[in-house]
């Protein structure tokens, strides 16, 4: 990378013409530059119209059922506990910036630079980025509020949008529960925009992952109603 400001990468980014390192640098810039976000949104519309410049054959009929079957197979039982989540419709634009970038299709490429580093360490962010970049990860949507990502070898990460801070003197604690027995999977505090947190223990197939609010320092067993619970 040269030292130029990443502003001039917007067109190439919109065209998906950056290599992974450039992309990470640009996304880090994007999270902080309202000008580039606005410009990118506009360029994306123009770029998307290029899709209409190609011949449009009918895809084979089997593809529709293949896709719907896979979508059905990924249905998971998400139990939302909305108490501490702000209404998505009311979010301030700045707070949603990271989620915008995610929503525009750069989800799996790099996330570490978009994260709030105040509460989640650089090392943890990089760990999450590694998990996201792992081939064959399964991502479970937490009803629009974030994701649980699990690699084929069972390493897990939580990426949460717009999580409110816990009560004073409290933290969030993640749990991996198998056969009804929750085991502590790490403590974290929410970032301002996106909270990304690598789970400290593996997530076996069929296990549930949940988050509770606990007193600072954490506990060995959950003592409050989970904010959410997701089954893998």
């Amino acid at each position: 990378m040269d030292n130029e400001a990443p502003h001039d990468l917007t067109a190439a980014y919109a065209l998906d013409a950056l290599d992974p390192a450039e992309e990470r640098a640009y996304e880090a810039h994007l999270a902080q530059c309202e000008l580039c976000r606005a410009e990118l949104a506009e360029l994306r519309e123009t770029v998307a119209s290029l899709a209409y410049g190609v011949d449009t054959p009918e895809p084979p009929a089997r593809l529709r059922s293949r896709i719907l079957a896979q979508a059905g197979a990924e249905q998971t039982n998400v139990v939302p506990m909305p108490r501490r989540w702000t209404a998505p419709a009311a979010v301030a634009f700045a707070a949603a910036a990271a989620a915008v970038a995610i929503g525009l299709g750069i989800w799996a490429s790099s996330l570490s630079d978009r994260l709030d580093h105040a509460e989640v360490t650089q090392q943890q962010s990089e760990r999450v980025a590694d998990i996201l970049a792992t081939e064959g990860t399964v991502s479970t949507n937490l009803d629009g509020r974030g994701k649980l990502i699990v690699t084929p070898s069972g390493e897990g990460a939580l990426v949460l949008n717009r999580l409110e801070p816990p009560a004073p003197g409290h933290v969030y604690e993640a749990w991996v529960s198998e056969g009804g027995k929750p085991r502590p999977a790490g403590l974290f505090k929410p970032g301002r925009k996106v909270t990304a947190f690598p789970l400290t223990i593996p997530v076996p197939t069929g296990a549930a992952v949940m988050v509770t609010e606990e007193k600072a320092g954490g506990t060995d067993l959950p003592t409050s109603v989970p904010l959410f619970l997701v089954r893998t």
Partner: protein
Amino acid sequence: MRRDLAHLSDEALVTLVARSDESALGELYDRYSRIAFGLARRIVRDETLAEDALQEGFMSIWRSAGQFIPERAKASTWLLTLVHRRAVDLVRREDRRRAEPLDFVVESHVEAADDVAWLRLERQRVQGALRKLPDQQREAIELAYYGGFTQSELAERLGEPLGTIKSRMFAGLGRLRELLAEPVLDDTPSWTTKHPTT
């Protein structure tokens, strides 16, 4: 039971998809699979790989619908961005990129359905706009978007400084935006005077 979702906007469908509504995903597929498949096939240059790209693209839609923010993009833009991304990922992995210019295919038969007619009209409009771009700008945009080349690869391939490639992409997209905003006056066959309902 098959619900009728035809009256819903694309954005409303994405909201339903975010709630794991499979029939909404099916409806989005029915609306965009042709264009998405055409795009993927253009990039990966192989029917089977195009199917994989489309499948991966729609699974990205399924998984990330919760992050879609309608204030920032049209649902169709978001969807085509995801499919494009998956196709480019695939073609880079397989290293099957080809540099031929966009082919202007003459269809051997006329399909009557309104949506097909509309796609033909759109294709003419976009190809017409591309043709009006300065050659070097068109080349950079086509090789990047349809060819899956990165800007650095383009600089090397075309023997130009990276800054030149960046400028061509930027200027080209700006000009393309203006051209696409112009009303279609010429290049339009008579059958398109019947305005399709979309």
